[in-house]
């Protein structure tokens, strides 16, 4: 390190000779902070998304590094939000990367006192069997006057407002074909 570099490393020197007489800007910057680069600059990729919380629909930019979400920012291009996010939207990186998120199927048998492990494929198969059995057991073909009912009141579902349109479409399509009527979501609360 030469003397000149050493002197220029002093914030007070930069403050006197530079354009930052109050020492609140570049003059006070350490070499460490000067070298810092935003996570968004070094991300491997970025996708356009939408905030998952309320119904305003703020634009999000989701940054990915090493196959993991590294940052979520407001999308300045959005004419709705103009780059802004509220505390929830701004915290949504923690929502998706939280260590509290369940990543494994959990199973609780009738009268069981604890959770157990279960393989996802096995769980899917067991659920399918239960749907088929409940449907068969509670099937109503016609009413007292012979009008068609072709339905089951033995299977119900709740939720949809946090899901995608495509997901709601498949839920409705499958349950309707199976004759399940009591399909409800947050719009009813």
């Amino acid at each position: 390190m030469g003397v000149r570099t050493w002197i220029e490393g002093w914030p007070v020197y930069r403050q006197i000779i530079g354009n930052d007489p109050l020492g609140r800007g570049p003059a006070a910057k350490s070499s460490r902070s000067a070298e810092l680069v935003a996570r968004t600059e070094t991300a491997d990729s970025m996708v356009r998304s939408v905030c998952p919380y309320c119904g305003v629909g703020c634009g999000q930019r989701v940054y990915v590094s090493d196959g993991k979400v590294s940052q979520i920012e407001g999308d300045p291009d959005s004419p709705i939000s103009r780059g802004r996010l509220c505390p929830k939207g701004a915290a949504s990186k923690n929502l998706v990367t939280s260590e509290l998120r369940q990543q494994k199927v959990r199973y609780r048998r009738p009268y069981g006192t604890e959770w157990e492990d279960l393989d996802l494929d096995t769980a899917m198969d067991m659920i399918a069997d239960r749907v088929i059995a409940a449907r068969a057991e509670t099937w109503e073909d016609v009413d007292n006057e012979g009008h068609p009912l072709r339905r089951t009141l033995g299977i119900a579902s709740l939720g949809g407002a946090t899901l995608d349109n495509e997901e709601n479409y498949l839920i409705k399509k499958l349950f309707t074909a199976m004759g399940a009527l009591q399909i409800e979501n947050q719009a009813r609360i």
Partner: protein
Amino acid sequence: MAEAHPVGFQWAMEAKARGAKIFHVDPRFTRTSALASAHVPIRAGTDIAFLGGIVNYILRNELDFREYVIAYTNAATIVSEDFRDTEELDGLFSGYDAEKTSYDQQSWQYQGQEEAGRRDTVTERETAAGLGYESHGPPISGQARRDETLQHPRCVYQILKRHYARYTPEMVERVCGIAREKFEEVARAWTENSGRDRTTMLVYSVGWTQHTVGVQYIRTGAIIQLLLGNVGRPGGGVLALRGHASIQGSTDIPTLFDLLPGYLPKPHHASHPTFDEWVDSIRRPGQKGFWGNARSYAVNLLKAYWGDAATPENDFCYGYLPRMTGDHGHYQTVFDMIDGKVKGYFLVGQNPAVGSAHGRAQRRGLANLDWLVVRDLFMIESATFWKDGPEVETGELAPDRCRTEVFFLPAASHVEKEGTFTQTQRLVQWREKAVEPPGDCRSELWFFYHLGRIIRQKLAASPSPRDQAVLDLTWDYPTSGPHDEPCAEAVLREINGYEVATGRPLSSFTEMTADGATAGGCWIYCGVFADGVNQAARRKPGREQSWVAPEWGWAWPANRRLLYNRASADPQGRPWSERKRYVWWDEESGEWTGHDVPDFEKTKPPSYRPPDGATGVAALAGDDPFIMQGDGKGWLFAPTGVLDGPLPTHYEPAESPVRNPLYDQQASPARKTYQRPDNPINPSPPGPHSQVFPYVFTTARLTEHHTAGGMSRTVRYLAELQPEMFVEVSPELAVQLGLTHLGWAHVVTARAVIEARVLVTDRLSPLRVEGRVIHQVWLPYHYGGTGLVRGESVNDLFGAVLDPHVLIQESKVGTCDIRPGRRPTGPALLDFLADYRRRAGITDGPYPPIVTTDGSTNREA
């Protein structure tokens, strides 16, 4: 708005910076109030009295936008001479049947059309038929007698005037606790800022829907906005701020029992035995408007569901649709679970143990299933009720006595899948996928596609006719990736619709045909894949396009950003003013043009008059802007569709400490009740014992949390920002009850008792109502027993009493008692509640009477 929709609120702030006045009407002073021009505290549950006061102010001073009102609303239409108003029948309209607690609507009809009112209103209530009218008007004949001088004593304008004549500033003060000067300040600002050159916007959040008269709250707002010419014009409207990322989408493409995609009603076993009867009930032959093409919309849906199996010969598989027989809504289902009628339940991103009213009933229902599937990001209370719910503490439930088999399947987050959300303005926005979901986490698209695939495999050899609908289903979506994720874009293409022979995506629902040549899963979304392009994925920066920003995402229908925007021009098609120019008729090119996609047939001139006998779209005149309404008009008076009266009327909430100052009829005479011992309702006047629960409580959101907390109590930063359940009380009430700031209090209703930390604040102030002081307290509803921060659930305090149109519960107002200190624990808690119920006279009923007037005497105001 600043609390629950902060980023949307930037536009309100921008308007304020440009000189707009903002009034915040809310029981509690919030971050919205802090930034508004004025905060108007109101007694919870009295909004119709307040807004009715504004209607009266407009009419008494003739401040309505007369040219708009005559041309675009039903103000001039003459109503049946059999009609009797609440002013004549002390809080009831004509046609009330006390036994059915429902109305015969014949006397509410337009003159000469009384037959149209012959409707089964009990079934309409049971089946939430009101929701089916969300995107269009209820049935009405296209032609009606009118008096455009507005002088006929039975024209809507005069009826409206009489109905609201007693909603004076003095009455508003008596009912709502709002000082006369404050009320007049709002009324003056609203009317002065409306007309040719100016428009005023009414914004509500969906707490408005959580009342026994929720639909009528919104209708009162709509009446004001129609009278002032604030509908279909820029800067006007009645704007609902919805609380979930795609709650609009999940209503349009509904996971709701009474609807099929695009607001087609689910068939009813008695009313719609055949395809033609079902279609005609939507199409309503003889009526004006775009529902005239309902047969096409219905055929396209069935064709999208059942593909080649759906043919004209078999009515496109109409026989495969399950039929309603009554109420199959959320609360009925929960009571059915308690009664052991439901075997299996799916919870997909919803947490009813915390988020739904009457949490205790919710959990008791979950505890009495054969099996339960919970799909969520986090382990929520609705998955763990069997081991750590409040009923385990009281000894009512124990894991080794709970029979429910529970599957918890972790869900993919919004960045781990692609698809569309529809936000509050009907804007459909595509999300790209950032990463693969971890571990066993999967999207709902994956779960339901594969569940359907496995079920179809298992049933493949079934000879049973009931399985044919499952096997005939079109269910062949392409999959890709390590988990065989179905292609969301393929599903969106099906929702959009396509030409069956070629697969070409349709560009507009006007291309849909009724012969099976086209198929489309949700007619109002037709165009989202216009020209084979995913229009919802459009991301042209806002700053590079007009202020309407038509090239960001896609709005249904047909990318229109402002509904009914034909009303932004005068009857001759000219902008009402330069300042409010939006959509207008261009004489030279012979078409409608403007900043937005015109919500009108593009080349139908303003001068067009339908020939005699025209129906459907052809019957809409060139100056009928409300193109989905049966008469093309905005409705000040609603002859059908509403079940509790053609005009909004102030009724007290189902639980209120106050006798209705306006009528002997205390609460909504058509409200939906569940009279069961496990759904006790606190007593209200005129019955005895209402003093047992003397305080009013209301609930809302905090900026830092989201709904039942499943997506926020689990997030570190948010948990730290709002770490604990609390109850806000005024300094006056704190003194009266001996509550100390940051100390404990418990809040009691007939259903539950919960404890919370006390926050003494002048954000709440006692209101003077009918000469006495009414104290209101406020609680956030985000807390539950799991997550990083925990607290007791305020929704446990509510019972289930519902709005009759949409079967939404009254969970924004109730009565309670409050005591200092912590609540009793264990079995003592049950004794404590039993004692309250005994003192309130509600051990196993009786239930508050629905009718509290004999309908004859008229009290003087």
